[in-house]
């Protein structure tokens, strides 16, 4: 087992150049954005003199490669700069927002699985029959609905009309977070379900037709027990990689959703920083998202390895 997991350190080392690439792209992109941060910070009433002074203070008057060099050397010291707008270390700001977004993402994924697994099972046990067609129509509609619209609809129905959930915000305690994040997580979760259902439905159909399920039936296994022991884990294997890919999109989707639900996560932070040309914050958030995607990739491989004992990612010959 441990031997099969030895691919993880290798993956971590391989991730370093990827992260560097991300920093470079992030840095260049921020500087290609139209608009000058000094003007944005100082507002309409700035004079050319104050703007020039601020540009010197922020280091914006230096050549761009100097700025990048400085950025990277600071990065190694755990210093991502000071936010132009908040006048606080960016690391502090981002670290405060990370848990919010991560819980939102984990929460959405959980809700998506709670919805998708039974629906996929319902569809796969009667392919091309009534209930399968209903589920397939749901996946079509689910794929067609824009996330922000679903979010607003959920707010209208569950928050404004039924008053079951808050309209927005994040709450203060862990339980409150769970309560406040329900609607945004559901919104993101619903967006994830069509992909998961499709993948899980087709792999479940394959697994149900397999000989080992016939074997399980010949041992008297049936219903939920059969599903839990002999179908779900096997059918989940291809779906894991599908989910891994969609996690990147989920973070992207959370930008809009955090805005809709006024959640103080990375998405809101990113959006505000873009409006104020707060380069250090933009860089830090994007850097984190890059790290997140790389991390999810490794996590996907890990899950894969844990689910399927036949998978060996170490590249060595099986002993």
């Amino acid at each position, binding site marked *: 087992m441990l031997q099969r997991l030895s691919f993880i350190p290798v993956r971590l080392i391989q991730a370093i150049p990827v992260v560097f690439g991300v920093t470079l792209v992030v840095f260049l992109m921020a500087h290609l954005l139209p608009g000058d941060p000094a003007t944005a910070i100082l507002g309409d009433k700035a004079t050319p003199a104050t703007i020039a002074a601020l540009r010197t203070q922020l280091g914006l008057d230096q050549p761009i490669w100097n700025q990048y060099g400085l950025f990277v050397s600071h990065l190694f010291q755990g210093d991502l700069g000071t936010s132009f707008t908040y006048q606080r270390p960016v690391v502090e700001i981002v670290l405060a927002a990370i848990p919010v977004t991560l819980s939102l993402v984990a929460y959405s994924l959980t809700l998506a699985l709670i919805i998708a697994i039974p629906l996929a099972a319902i569809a796969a046990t009667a392919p091309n029959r009534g209930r399968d067609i209903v589920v397939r129509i749901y996946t079509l509609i689910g794929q067609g609905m824009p996330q922000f619209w679903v979010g607003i609809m959920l707010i209208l129905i569950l928050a404004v009309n039924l008053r079951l959930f808050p309209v927005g915000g994040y709450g203060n305690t862990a339980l409150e977070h769970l309560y406040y994040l329900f609607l945004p997580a559901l919104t993101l979760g619903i967006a994830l379900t069509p992909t998961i259902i499709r993948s899980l439905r087709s792999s479940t159909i394959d697994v149900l037709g397999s000989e080992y399920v*016939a074997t399980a039936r010949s041992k008297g296994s*049936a219903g939920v027990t059969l599903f839990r022991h002999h179908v779900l884990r096997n059918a989940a294997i291809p779906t894991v990689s599908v989910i891994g890919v969609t996690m990147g999109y989920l973070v992207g989707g959370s930008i809009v959703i955090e805005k809709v639900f006024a959640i103080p996560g990375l998405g809101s932070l990113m959006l505000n920083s873009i409006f104020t040309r707060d380069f250090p914050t933009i860089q830090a958030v994007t850097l984190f998202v890059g790290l997140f995607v790389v991390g999810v990739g490794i996590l996907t491989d890990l899950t894969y390895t844990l689910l399927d004992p036949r998978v060996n990612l170490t590249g060595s010959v099986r002993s």
Partner: protein
Amino acid sequence: MSTPLLEVTDLSISVMGSKARTKIVEGVSFSVEAGERFGLVGESGSGKSMTLRSIANLLPGGVTVSSGSILYKGQELIGLQNEKRRRLMGPEIAMVFQEPMTALNPVMRVGEQIAEGPRRYLGLSRSAAMDLAVSMMARTGIPDPKQRAKAYPHQLSGGLRQRVMIAMALSCRPKLLLCDEPTTALDVTVQHQVLRQLEELCEDFGASLVFVTHDLAVVNQTCSKLAVMYAGRIVETGPVKDVFKDPRHPYTQGLLTSAPDFDQPERELIPIPGFPPNLADRPPGCEFAPRCRYAQADCTSLQPRLLPVEPGRNSACLHTEEIFPGVLV
């Protein structure tokens, strides 16, 4: 005479095609006594596997029993409530599949897979069921069973995997073991060992065996009685020794003369010409007539019935008497 353990009468199985139902098994009848080892022989597509699967209620989607009866210990299985039928699977009837690689769950340790049935039916705890699994593995001749129980199917060789299947099938001490070509995927030496083991265990556990295969040598080694199937029908039944020595149906004769025999390596192999019929478009009369070297005019118009040709032997040929002289009808 006591009730046979398994009695299949006039069983027909059909598959739903894109346009019409096609009968893939028609009018199959046979019975298996307690402790008996029964072979069901035929080439691919003869309906032998489907017959076997219908007993275990494991027909693939779109394939159904259209008529007939399957009595197990006198109890009708066709139309029996699914739940009641499921409860028979394991402690009464068990099955060994052809390809142990695909028939074992690839993501579950083999010990757990064997322990599953005993936990369900014998009410054993997890560790007691695991102990039973290990002892079953030892009985099927798996070396170092305690270690091997922790292995996944892909870590075992073909022979060991099939032994795991056998251990799994016998773990709840079934009275009837259904084997669907259990040794086809194995090489000949391993095949021989596995068959030996299977025979011994069935003897020890007092289980009857229904053994489906296309390999005549395997039937000869394992079974006492057999039925030969062709195009979804039984064409000949009888004790294995007698049928091998002295077949009473041209198809059986064709099978025997087309297979090599180690005792007579010099003997010329005579292939059966042609192909099995398309079951959706059966020829009129005897299905074997187009390939039969003894076929006469009436063979293509009259459907032969399976009739006794000798005590304990039946054949479905209109001209058994002329082709195989000395037959009492």
